């Protein structure tokens, strides 16, 4: 570089460039910093709320005291049933799109359907859940109806993540297998899926995180404001973390200030941990891959 002379034009350009860089860096930080401040506020205000009892007790005294135990258990139920319903559909759809589908009108229609499933407002999914699962299939307001509603809603998450990890398996792997006389399915089952299973898993973790936070789709399909007992089957209603936060921060009078902050922080913590695990897993896999 020393053999070049720095001209005035060059210098002014460079100044302009570093100005732009600083400006854009600040823009990026203004997206992140408010959330940091919010997190700190949540932590500060929920001080003293957390104890073993907070996680292990039922709410008492019309939800102004006690813990969040039934909401935690309910969210587990909802997530588990939703996963059971959506993962088989999602993985099958992804296998079809990645391994079988040609560039036809039908494939394009499937892709558009996936985009729209992801883009339809959550409250419309809720209306669908009411119309289809609660009323038409007569599941009533139940864990089953709520979980199926969320399964349809989060299906695109599984499909997209699975399709990506299937497509990351190099084509020569498949060709080598075909040349050995294996059928298409044998190739998928023995070669493609084992090589992409961890990528599929990161997608499933992301779906869990989405499902934990969703509120609107379960409000009218199976989540209850308050129940003094735990659900025993998928036909029961249940409490849920996300709806509990909505209820105690808007519907219940005289809730001590720390309680909703504690619930909000717990919810954020669950989601953040799940997403961090998913991201960490993804980074680890990227480092490990040898092709």
């Amino acid at each position: 570089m020393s053999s070049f002379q720095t001209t005035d034009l060059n210098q002014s350009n460079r100044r302009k460039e570093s100005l732009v860089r600083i400006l854009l860096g600040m823009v990026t930080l203004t997206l992140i910093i408010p959330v940091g401040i919010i997190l700190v506020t949540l932590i500060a205000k929920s001080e003293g709320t957390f104890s073993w009892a907070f996680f292990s007790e039922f709410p008492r005294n019309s939800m102004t005291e006690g813990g969040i135990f039934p909401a935690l258990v309910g969210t587990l139920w909802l997530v588990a049933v939703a996963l059971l319903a959506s993962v088989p559909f999602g993985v099958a759809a992804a296998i079809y799109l990645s391994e079988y589908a040609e560039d036809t009108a039908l494939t394009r229609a499937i892709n558009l359907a996936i985009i729209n499933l992801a883009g339809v407002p959550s409250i419309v999914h809720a209306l669908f859940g009411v119309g289809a699962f609660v009323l038409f299939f007569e599941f009533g307001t139940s864990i089953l109806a709520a979980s199926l509603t969320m399964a349809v809603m989060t299906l695109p998450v599984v499909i997209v993540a699975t399709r990506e990890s299937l497509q990351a398996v190099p084509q020569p792997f498949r060709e080598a297998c075909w040349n050995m006389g294996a059928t298409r399915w044998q190739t998928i089952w023995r070669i493609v899926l084992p090589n992409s299973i961890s990528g599929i898993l990161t997608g499933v973790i992301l779906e869990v995180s989405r499902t934990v936070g969703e509120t609107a789709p379960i409000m009218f399909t199976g989540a209850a404001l308050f129940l003094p007992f735990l659900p025993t089957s998928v036909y029961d209603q249940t409490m849920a973390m996300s709806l509990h936060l909505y209820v105690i921060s808007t519907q219940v009078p005289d809730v001590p200030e720390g309680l909703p902050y504690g619930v909000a922080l717990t919810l954020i913590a669950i989601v953040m941990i799940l997403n961090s695990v998913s991201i960490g897993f993804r980074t680890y896999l990227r480092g490990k891959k040898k092709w």
Partner: protein
Amino acid sequence: MTSTKVELAHRASANAAALYRGRAWWVDRVAQGVVFLGGLSAIVFILSIFIFVAKEGLGFMVADLNIKEFLTSPEWRPTEDSPTYGILALMAGTASVTGLAMLIAVPFSLGAAIYIGEFATGKTREVLKVLVELLAAIPSVVWGFIGLSIMNPLIMELFDVPVGLNVLNAGVILGLMAAPIMTTIAEDALKAVPDSYREAAEALGATRWQVIFKVVLPSAKKGLVAAILLGVGRGFGETMAVLMATGHAINLPTSPFDSVCAMTATIAAELGETAQGSPHYQVLFAIGISLFLITFVINMAADVFVRGGLRMRSKKA
């Protein structure tokens, strides 16, 4: 997936092998059928969403719907003796909140995408990308709670207004919610611009900023438009955060400090109180159908832009 030569040869040999239909052949057939059904399920689900929501709202749309009143009257009084069902105020609420959110989210998310995609390097870039992804994961009910408990007193104090639950509050919350998603999509669009473009411009003596402004941004234009459209769709369909932060009062807003009521939030707030099959219940489903159709159009438009962007990449790369 494009067919390779090996793949075609494999198919030919598979056809020949079809003469001996052993167990493996049948398993292969059945598996293909099953995953095909899985693929179709996405189409089945999106159609059934439309059908089931329309079915519940159909009675109202056929019998009582006065299109002119529905779309142009600001009077939303579904519970009175002679109810009126005008959603103009609800649409105005949704539009004002989404509009303000985009005023905030568009410049910030595009700026952040440019910084992360074009300026940041190595560790900084990875950390920023992870942070943006984590921001996008915060549930909407938590954002609503933040609007309710942190933004509300803040706005009352800063602007000396009696109520802090208004267009400004929900707009800022929604902007913060939409920005991370838009940043991620916009950054993908920037990444899709081939490096050879940048190298060519740099070889001509362009500075980094000139490369970005004159070469990268114009080439990524369609993907960036798609990012903005998807952000609009997201803001439009957001329910819980908007329900909790707007103050939920029927209003044609004239200032950012007016409380409003969004279409999505109205459904969420009122569905639980209506009797199944009543006109009020059905009109809420009619609003749901409108929401479905509007987001459908937005998503389609975004897809057209994304596809346009991809075509450019495959042609020129």
